[in-house]
């Protein structure tokens, strides 16, 4: 599923760039993320707790900064996670674009989230909504952190 989010951050682009490309720091803006630790150049391990009503998913996986182009203000992040109890997987690719807006920066996030296995059988609209919520909160949190 493809999702799009935009947030206006009250900070110059360089500062926003620094935060979004600092994966452990940026990950703190995703609600439910537990310790993110480096596992190689541009690669991290982490876990995410997602609550869908009574259902709690613990997604363990890898996050990698797959592309960065500071001049163009573009970065791509890929996350692959698995709930090993359920055997479900979640894969997300996020393309972030920073656009100068005078003093401020517009943050655009285009993400593609794919959910497979038992988690995926839970109901795609519900999952889509959850993913959408997470991304919204992420964008808002980034904006707040830098404001």
């Amino acid at each position, binding site marked *: 599923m493809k999702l799009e989010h935009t947030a206006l951050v009250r900070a110059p682009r360089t500062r926003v760039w620094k935060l979004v490309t600092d994966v452990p720091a940026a990950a703190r803006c995703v609600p439910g993320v537990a310790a993110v630790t480096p596992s190689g150049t541009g690669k991290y391990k982490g876990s995410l707790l997602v609550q869908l*009503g*009574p259902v709690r998913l613990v997604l363990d996986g890898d996050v990698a900064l797959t592309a960065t182009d500071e001049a163009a203000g573009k970065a791509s992040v890929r996350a692959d996670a698995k709930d090993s109890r359920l055997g479900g997987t979640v894969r997300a690719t996020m393309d972030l674009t920073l656009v100068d807006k005078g003093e401020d920066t517009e943050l655009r996030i285009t993400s593609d989230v794919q959910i497979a296995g*038992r988690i995926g*059988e839970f109901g795609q609209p519900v999952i889509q*909504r959850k993913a959408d919520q997470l991304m919204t909160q992420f964008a808002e949190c980034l904006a707040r952190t830098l404001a």
Partner: protein
Amino acid sequence: MTYDYHEPETVAEALALLALHGEDAHLVAGATAFTLLWRQGLLRPGHVIGLRRIAALGGITSTEGGLVIGATVTHRAIERAVEVGRYCPALTRTFASVATVRVRNQATLGGNLAHADPAQDPPPMLIALGAEVVATSAAGERTIPVDELFVDVFTTSLRADEILTAVRCPALAPGTRATYLKFLPRTADDYATVSVAATLRLADDGHVADVRVALGACGPTPVRARSVEAALRGARPDARHIADAAARVDADIAPFDDVRGSATYKRDMARVWTERALTELVS
């Protein structure tokens, strides 16, 4: 992997178990939704607290024009209760329209509400009736309007230490009419594409004295159509006013795409069925 199953006989015992096991506990009444989620492996509590043996949670009582329905009363029992039919025939029809007779024989009112599925039938009707739920904790009871119970998909405003123990339906002012319409374009046994519950009372002069409208399957929670209500309250409910009011439902809802229809179609259908519900109530 399994769980310990507890069947307390009083609300106090159930609350004590809930306090003891905290997040590792899950409450069930009819256990329909729980069994599905357990079987899918999506829920793995260590303790399951079954409420069905608690006598205080059963039964339907008529109160001065109103109704109190215990949380563990099944859909089927509500559908068949004479008191419910006397209180509001549309409420009977609402419960009778839930899934199939097998599910209605097992699923309970409390379970239905606590599960917070936005496509379920009873919540919009209960909202339109102005019902409230009783939430009981060690600290005592509090009431939550059904309207305020639902927070998100499968999420309620009940606290972790609370048990939904009953639903109170208030006395309806004389002359109040009610309806529940469920749009099922695919098969007779399906979740609604949209559903509309409404109550309406006309003043002696023919103007709308009171109106409440709520919709199911139109967003992450059942929603109250306050814009529609506002447009109609005090108005003379002719066809044009009803159509205009129904068109305002668009502002109250946030449907999403699913196999039962696109968000665009659901918006259109929310309007059509709101108009139909209101038309039925004034005719």
